């Protein structure tokens, strides 16, 4: 039985996936124009994949890494609502690189991905405006506890941006920028009877937002009231049950009740189970088999077999494999060896360590 299983699981095409991400870092065709306003997020998925594959140094050179660091710092922008990172330079007038207007404000999600990307690129963060970053976080928090994507009441607000605010505070090791006591009830209000968490109150439970909720709750500082055990025993059981039931016949996870499997949910649901201490409940052989079939012939991993790949699904598939690698009964190929992941902030343990030792800086009096 184990011989057959070993024969059945294809190799993880590491070289192809690294190549896919490297190419996307350099440019994209016009069909991908809708990613233009999210370039710093895309950069993270590409760099993160190379990091997970342990291919950053071998596939890129010093000049390129320096270039990317510089480009990311160009998105570091200050203004009346504090400091953060813009999604890209697309709306920045060339004469006004330092202070933003309402049209090119920093963005909560890309501030999070910028910090991780710079950590992957081993930046020393000497340029980071930490007081400004705290001011930005404060400017984004709403009365209901959630966070806007942009300061001064701009953009959407839901549990995803809330997670980013928590992750940024955690990396800064400074929680004075957010009101945790106000945020926690919002997160709790997103919980559904299914056991997962929706994007906002009244929504159906969804894998991605369940991860955001759980990671936020587990990241919350020791001073917050829910620290220790954010969920009751019954809630924990219910959430685990919903997550486990999201792994379908194909081996992949779906994101919502009775939907199709999608590679990205292999991470969102898989990482959630890891955070809840229930990773043993994932059928890793089936998971690996599904992700193997999501691989695109010319590199990159797609959301499901037969679809086109992209860095987002490539990164999250690799991250899922990192947490739930196929066991020796399924494969003995080293192609499936991925660097260990810090599931709370969603980057390799090595990068997380770099982030936590370089981002905080001196203790700030705010």
């Amino acid at each position, binding site marked *: 039985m184990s011989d057959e299983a070993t024969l059945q699981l294809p190799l993880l095409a590491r070289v192809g996936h690294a190549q896919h991400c490297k190419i996307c870092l350099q440019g994209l*065709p*016009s*069909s*991908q*124009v*809708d*990613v*233009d*306003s*999210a370039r710093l997020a895309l950069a993270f998925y590409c760099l993160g994949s190379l990091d997970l594959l342990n291919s950053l140094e071998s596939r890129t050179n010093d000049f390129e890494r320096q270039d990317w660091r510089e480009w990311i710092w160009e998105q570091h922008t200050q203004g009346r609502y504090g400091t953060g990172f813009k999604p890209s330079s*697309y*709306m920045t*007038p060339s004469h006004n690189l330092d202070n933003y207007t*309402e*049209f*090119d404000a920093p963005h909560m999600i890309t501030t999070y991905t910028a910090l991780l990307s710079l950590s992957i690129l081993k930046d020393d963060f000497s340029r980071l405006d930490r007081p400004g970053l705290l001011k930005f976080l404060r400017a984004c928090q709403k009365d209901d506890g959630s966070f806007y994507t942009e300061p001064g009441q*701009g*953009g*959407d607000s839901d549990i995803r941006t809330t997670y980013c605010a928590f992750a940024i505070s955690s990396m800064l090791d400074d929680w004075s920028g957010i009101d945790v006591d106000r945020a926690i009830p919002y997160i709790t209000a997103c919980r*559904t*009877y*299914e056991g997962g968490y929706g*994007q*906002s109150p*009244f*929504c*159906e439970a*969804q894998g991605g937002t369940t991860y955001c909720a759980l990671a936020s709750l587990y990241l919350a500082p020791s001073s917050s009231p829910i620290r220790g055990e954010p969920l009751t025993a019954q809630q924990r059981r219910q959430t685990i049950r919903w997550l486990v*039931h999201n792994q379908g016949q194909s081996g992949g996870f779906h994101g*919502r*009740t*009775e*939907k199709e499997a999608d590679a990205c949910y292999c991470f969102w649901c898989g990482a959630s189970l890891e955070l809840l201490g229930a990773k043993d409940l994932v059928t890793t052989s089936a998971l690996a088999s599904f992700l193997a079939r999501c691989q695109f012939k010319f590199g990159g991993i*797609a*959301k499901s077999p*037969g*679809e*086109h790949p*992209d860095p*987002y*699904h490539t990164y999250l598939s690799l991250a899922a494999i990192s947490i739930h690698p196929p066991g020796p009964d399924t494969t003995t190929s080293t192609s499936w060896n991925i660097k260990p992941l810090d599931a709370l902030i969603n980057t390799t343990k090595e990068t997380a360590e770099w982030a936590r030792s370089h981002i905080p800086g001196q203790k700030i009096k705010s």
Partner: protein
Amino acid sequence: MHGVKRVGQSKEALGAKKQREQAKIKDYLALTDDLLSRKKDKDWSKEAFDLTTRLLQVNPEFYTIWNYRRSIMLNGLFPPSSPEEINSLLASELSMTTAALKAHPKVYWIWNHRQWCLENVPEGPGQDGADFHGWRKANWDRELYVVEKMLDADARNFLAWNYRRYVLASMPIQRPKVSELTYTTRKIETNFSNFSAWHQRSKVYTSLWDSGSLDPIKCQEEEFELVRNAMYTDPNDQSVWMYHRWLVGSGKLYITVGALRQLNSTAL
């Protein structure tokens, strides 16, 4: 990131394709630059407005251009217009974005823009009664219709369900909540595996039981019958089992409380 399968192509075809790509990218960048400088000069003209239309057709995710477009309306187009003209302008915004939604049903910014338009419809056409809300009612009613069409196309589009909840809550003249129950029944009967509809149903019931508009005990028999039918139709479907869990969980709590109230009132 669309799921279009690749087809093999000749060298010439690939070369021509590459040229077209480069032309497209060049156009896009030129348009972006133009709008960027106009925005910097606080250009609130109709010309700028039309340019944002072009760019948003190419890239509806370009959210700052949606912001600029709204600024143009507020600073340039609205001030010299009568309430009637403003209503007309917003109505055409809504039909333009309906077309955009068909092509991009999950782009949050389009839904967001519609929301802004609806919230800015002026009072009128008249001064009192139904007339006072006339324009608003017409636009909000149409909005509900648009959401229904979106849900017909993709019954699990949760942005659309979310938006539907927002529309129902915000309409100037509210629909009775029971009519939403009927809507969920219709969606469920079309497809038992539509968990989003079951989910909406649980929300509507919770609201109706909370307000005392419906008696949970009376509802339960009908609900269990519906659930039984769905289970027989497709026992492998997660949706109905999940709904059943809700029904015997929170649903049951209401029923229990309702039963206690009844007991209490007969005892008095």
